[in-house]
């Protein structure tokens, strides 16, 4: 009972955090807290198998959620508050209420029925008792659930699958193509020059300088150029340094 009263406030706070967190990753973290606390409650209730399975399954699941959040929403974005589908929030509330009522009714009916007690359920040990139910009485429901999950997994794979239109190039072929390009157009076969190495800065937004002092545009990543963030022209810098040198000389005299 102590564990319950310790964990219940944590779980409620985490569940509220799940609803109100600004960043999607924070919401996923709150979900993890709820799930792990739930697992600990299972452990307290003498259900060790459910305890570990809850953690193994849900940590994997929440990890996937993390990945989806990071890949679909982006690392730094917060929740958009605008409704994308009209009336979405109203419908969600109604369906959520219906689901809640169904869950409460279903759980209420099972709890009010006759209770066998833990000792009867765990006669041969907890995993055996569960296995007997899963592969005996409820085997059909179990198999249907697994079929549903496999269908979902295959569906996700079909949606994410990309057909290769041309055969994939091997490393040897890529190298040969680069050499051919070099012979034909003079394009350098090696990696692109790194930014800033021979210039006055080594930041990624500074182009490298050729021996004659001209900046080498190809040394800056194309995404930086597209955003217009590259640093160009060193005249200001040179003027500043010359000015500083003049000042120093002035004070010396």
């Amino acid at each position, binding site marked *: 009972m102590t564990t319950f009263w310790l964990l219940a406030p944590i779980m409620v706070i985490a569940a509220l955090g799940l609803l109100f967190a600004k*960043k999607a*990753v*924070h919401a996923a*973290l709150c979900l*993890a807290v709820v799930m*792990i606390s739930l*697992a600990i409650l299972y452990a307290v209730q003498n259900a*060790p*198998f459910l*305890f*570990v*399975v809850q*953690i*193994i399954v849900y*940590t*994997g699941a929440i*990890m996937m959620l*993390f*990945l989806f959040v*990071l890949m679909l929403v982006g*690392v730094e974005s917060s929740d958009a508050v605008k409704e994308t589908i009209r009336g979405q929030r109203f419908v969600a509330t109604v369906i959520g209420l219906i689901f809640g009522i169904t869950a409460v009714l279903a759980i209420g009916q099972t709890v009010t029925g006759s209770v066998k007690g833990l000792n009867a359920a765990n006669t041969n*040990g*907890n*995993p055996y008792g569960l296995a007997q139910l899963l592969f005996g009485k409820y085997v059909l429901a179990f198999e249907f659930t697994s079929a549903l999950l496999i269908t979902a997994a295959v569906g996700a794979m079909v949606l994410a699958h990309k057909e290769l239109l041309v055969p994939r190039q091997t490393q040897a072929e890529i190298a040969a193509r680069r*050499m*051919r390009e*070099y*012979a*034909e157009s003079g394009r350098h076969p090696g990696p692109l020059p790194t930014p800033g190495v021979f210039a006055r800065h080594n930041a990624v937004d500074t182009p490298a300088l050729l021996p004659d002092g001209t900046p080498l545009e190809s040394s800056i990543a194309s995404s930086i150029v597209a955003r217009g963030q590259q640093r160009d022209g060193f005249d200001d810098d040179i003027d500043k340094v010359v000015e500083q040198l003049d000042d120093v000389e002035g004070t010396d005299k």
Partner: protein
Amino acid sequence: MSSLFGHEPFWVIALKAVLIFVFLMVYTLFNIWFERRVVAKMQHRIGPNVNGPFGLLQSLADGVKLALKEDIVVKAADKIVYILAPILATIPAFLAWAVIPFGPTVKIPFTDRMTPLQLTDLPVAVLYILAMTSIGVYGIVLAGWSSGSIYALLGGMRSSAQVISYEVAMGLSFVSVFMYAGSMSTSEIVSAQHSTWFFVPLFPSFIIYCIAMVGETNRAPFDLPEAEGELVGGFHTEYSSLKFALFFLAEYVNMVTVSALATTLFLGGWRAPFGLSQVNDGVLNTGYWPVLWFFGKTLAFIFMFVWLRGTLPRMRYDQFMSFGWKVLIPVSLVWIVAVALIRKLKNEDMLGQQTLMWVAIVAGVLVLLTFLIPEKKTPEPPPEPDEVDAFAGGYPVPPMPEAKPRSS
């Protein structure tokens, strides 16, 4: 499973918990020294040999220095998660040790109390360890995300994908052990191995586990989340001082955890090695002797980790993933079906020990024969012309040593 588990006085439990904690800390310091010395030996160097006997205190000095360094919280970091991540990586690494059996039931010195050398046991202890390692991954992923750095993020992503896919293979290799032991509790798995250690009948599972455990702990050659050539430091790029030390600690503790689990599941746990268990009616399997065998076996696995690191180059990421999903998992699934079939046939008395041995020998020979199949021939490169065109493809080419330059 001993009836003592969960029914011991508080001081016994506290004593065992503190001893496990101290053991893991000291073992980590020892392992860092051990790894550096062994790798040095493999590379014809000496390794740390200045501080303390054989340089044993080097890692202690390094640890103190690390803790006293400046603790930097980077500006772009998500502060709460950034601080939470190293804690989340370390605590589960220690928690997993609650169910590792160090030895049989012994008498505590200076008292009359008997206690098993294991903090506690669950009917699902092995799954519990799996659950703890999967919580530990959170630390790595969150560290990668919260650092606000691309290198760290990529390292964290790689690590989560890697650990999830190799955990599947690892879990599948446990299944055959469960079938043979008839239990998922660590102490019962050890007691089920009193005649044969499970790595003999379940050799494929043992191999799969050994590969998966290297992938699971992010160690070379599978250390892609911290591939320094590509990702600087991977998920811990932005961490310094004690926070970095915690990640370091977690990695080494995890290494010992998977080694201890391999010992428990496949190498008879704390049981004395083959010859020694017969000495004097198995006296070496009682009292505090088994702790020695347990350490010895885990140290052998640590040596294997170091050996791998000293030998193999890092794998390419796509090859690594396709190896996990397309080789390890299908092989373990087939093997589980085979094990289930063998168990069933043996229980029904349709399969004797003799036939099983012959089948195993034939299968082993067949596997060895596959090594003799010549590899698919790569198409031969076109024969070099006798005379070399010094400007092949419009670009000056140096002639091969024995070729004649064109006589024009």
